[in-house]
């Protein structure tokens, strides 16, 4: 099977009010586009840990296209935003309803306000030392809707400093002058700041919140440039060199009721409701208004039409079947592939794609909790100190990366769409799935097809928090 190039997509460009700029992956929905602090980039969900202590690891990225080193005080979690990671279990999974929600709220304080040095008063040796001026802390709450919907505070944490360079040498090589350190294979090797900001909360939860390298990779520039794709060796990771802010939590699977089940995962961001009227208005059920939502990669970016992207962002997955199913069952991208690339066109891939809708509707990342832990990406198969786990494939099941599933009695994908790992090549996986036919048994697999960006620009960690070290503001690929 010959690799096929990703075909031109209709570009979801500018929409909306004056001043909005072109959309791209990570900033796709027209009316969420420029609320960086509440704009989700990616959601990750996968099984980690050991059979004795198994976790469902969840991660949410926000702040797309964080330029390293630009205004160290500019990229912080927003105190006004409610960041949430949701897990659907049992009957809630098919309904798209959150069973348990993990809520993150941030606060900002300064050790010294009588200075222009907002973030760093000197070289930071340890997180929250005297030289870390702007410091964010956060509180994690669990809302468990099994039973009475109790809210429980799981604990608190501190956000490590953003990676500026010499001020934050522990992230970097050469005392802060060199590039950010590669990801590592063991917790003992983590940089000090990251290690110091992994917190164990009550009931065995572990959390990390802070700046990380953006682990998504694809040649988005070419894809959105009328799909004039670049060849191997020329294609570029458009997210390369950028950071994000990430919220990560390891949920003990025991907390979810055990591992013989599939969990659904999605994330939302919400801003406080603002009321102008002092009286006479409607009664509101929540003090927050959802402004962003993400489950599987690429659903909103690649399948939902422009006219409905904002609707997607402000609705819950419970409405996906009614509102967005058609985008999955009749994926426009498949039509474009047939129209523009495939010679001859592949019959039957444009409509009635129940296989695609099974992934995206409702838009939750479905994770089979019964498997062993996922295989993790490091720095590629041949990295000298942190290679990918044996058997890891960026193409997940299309690359032979499968895991035995006691729940299903067979094998399931080792990565997306069974969960989503750092390092999954979601663009290639999605396109390969679209041109294949997974509705039949055995499935017809065509491809793999892709954009010729086959790896991330940075080395992932194979330990929590998994995302790579944030790019050094002083020394990064954009220079």
């Amino acid at each position, binding site marked *: 099977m010959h690799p096929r190039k990703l075909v031109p997509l209709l570009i979801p460009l*500018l929409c909306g009010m004056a001043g*909005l700029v072109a959309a791209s992956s990570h900033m796709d929905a027209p*009316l969420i586009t*420029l*609320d960086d602090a509440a704009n989700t980039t990616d959601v990750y969900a996968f099984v980690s840990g050991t059979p004795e202590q198994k976790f469902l690891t969840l991660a949410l990225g926000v702040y797309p296209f964080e330029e390293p080193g630009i205004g160290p005080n500019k990229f912080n979690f927003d*105190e*006004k935003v409610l960041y949430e990671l949701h897990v659907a279990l049992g009957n809630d999974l098919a309904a798209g309803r959150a069973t348990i929600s993990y809520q993150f709220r941030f606060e900002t304080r300064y050790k010294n306000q009588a200075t222009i040095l907002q973030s760093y008063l000197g070289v930071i040796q340890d997180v929250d030392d005297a030289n870390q001026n702007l410091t964010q802390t956060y509180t994690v709450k669990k809302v468990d809707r099994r039973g009475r919907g109790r809210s429980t505070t799981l604990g608190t944490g501190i956000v490590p400093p953003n990676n500026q360079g010499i001020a934050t040498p522990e992230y970097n090589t050469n005392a802060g002058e060199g590039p950010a350190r590669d990801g590592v294979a063991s917790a003992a090797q983590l940089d000090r700041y990251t290690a110091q900001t992994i917190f164990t909360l009550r009931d065995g939860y572990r959390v990390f919140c802070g700046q990380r390298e953006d682990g998504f990779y694809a040649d988005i520039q070419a894809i959105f440039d009328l799909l004039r794709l670049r060849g191997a060796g020329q294609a570029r990771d458009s997210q390369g060199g950028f950071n994000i802010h990430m919220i990560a939590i390891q949920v003990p699977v025991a907390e979810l009721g055990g591992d013989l089940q599939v969990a659904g995962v999605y994330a939302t961001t919400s801003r406080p*409701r*603002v009321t102008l009227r002092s009286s006479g208005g409607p009664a509101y059920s929540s003090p927050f208004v959802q402004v962003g939502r993400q489950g599987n990669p690429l659903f909103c970016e690649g399948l939902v039409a422009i006219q409905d992207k904002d609707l997607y962002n402000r609705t819950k997955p419970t409405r996906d079947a009614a509102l967005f199913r058609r985008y999955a069952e009749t994926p426009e991208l498949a039509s474009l592939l047939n129209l523009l690339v495939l010679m001859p066109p592949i019959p039957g891939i444009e409509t009635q794609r129940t296989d695609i809708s099974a992934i995206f509707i409702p838009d939750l990342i479905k994770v089979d909790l019964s498997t062993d832990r996922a295989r993790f990406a490091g720095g590629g198969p041949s990295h000298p100190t942190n290679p990918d786990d044996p058997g890891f494939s960026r193409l997940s099941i299309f690359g032979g990366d499968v895991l035995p599933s006691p729940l299903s009695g067979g094998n399931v994908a080792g990565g997306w769409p069974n969960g989503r790992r750092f390092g999954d090549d979601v663009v290639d996986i999605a396109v390969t799935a679209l041109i294949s036919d997974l509705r039949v048994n055995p499935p017809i697999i065509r491809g793999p097809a892709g954009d010729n960006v086959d790896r991330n620009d940075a080395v992932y960690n194979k330990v929590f928090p998994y995302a790579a070290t944030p790019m050094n503001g002083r020394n990064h690929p954009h220079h």
Partner: protein
Amino acid sequence: MNRSLSLVALLALLGCAAEKNDPAPAAAPLVDPCAAALASLPGTTPQDREIARVQEEARQARDPSPLLERLGWLLVARARSSGDEGFYPLARQSALCLLRRRPESFEARLLDGHVLHQMHRFREAEEVAKRLVRERGGPFDFGLLGDAQMEQGRVAEAIGSYQRMLDLKPCLQSMSRAAHVCWLKGDRTRALELIRMAAGAGSRRDPESLAWVHTRRSLWELEAGSETEALAAAAEALSLVPDHAPALLARGRVLLGAGRDTEAIAALRPAADQRPLPEYLWTLAEALRSAHRIEEAERVEAELLRSGAAADPRTFALFLASTGRDAAEAVALARAELANRADVFTHDALAWALAAAGRLEEARPHAERALSEGTREARLLYHAGALAAAGGRREDARRLLLEAAALQRLLLPSERADLERRRAVL
């Protein structure tokens, strides 16, 4: 030929109506809106180049619809950054072209409504918005409706529309509108809270919107008594868009209020060069007079007298009335503006013009209407106090002028001087 003149010439050639308050033509348009939207424009700024690029893509595309929409918003952004309102009719041509291709396009109608609003065709904008709300009900549809209602002085209705917008999407655009409502209703504390929230919901990738938010914050911080915060907010705006005219104006006003005339002029001059509108020219002229640079001030005032009536009739009416010039023209301009734009500021302008013309009894209801929403703005209070004094209502006058005095840093030097004179005789 400067940019605005070249655009006007282009529009005249194409037969497009570029006037404000122009009713929708009954006859078919004289030109093809698509040809007008895609006609090449001069200019070398990055925005101009982006406009040219999108126009070229639209000419080549099999379906230029998304590009036409993008082009329309680029032209709107260009109008805002350049201060050249000639871009708005061109933006409207993009919308009309898109509507011709897709008559039911929500995106085209939102663009059209926004442009109509910017062209001060508020009733038409409201009709577009109402239909969008009825048929789609998106957050920006409610925002447009609220804007049109607000400009026509229907604040309660605007609050309802903005609330719907906020309920759907708390974002920079909705929160800044909420902030304005709070300020208008006299709740400056909440206005500042909301404008800060609006800034937090913005992005440096949309620097102009963020700069605008910080500019508003600058003036409200000054009202709240903090010159330092006001200058910091203006600086934040200018760090995002270095030549942002509204931010330069705000900075200039803060400095002028502090008696730092030379520094104020340094900010106001480039602002007025970019946007030779009455508000900018008047403020610059006052700063020059305050710095005893009378000849320069007179040149600026001459420019203001030449262009002010067409550029911004309301502010020009205030200028005429405040400087003891043609009160009759001031009344005529303000009254004409009121027919289209019945907000508190237009009522204030008419009240002041009528008072300048010696028509105090006619002025009084307009002065009362100007304060009816609870706005605690320096000029509104100063004018209302002056009218109360002139009408023999000394207690009202003392109260209003005292409140204006607390905010006098936001008044122009001549207004501050007049305020003090009036207080001294009470």
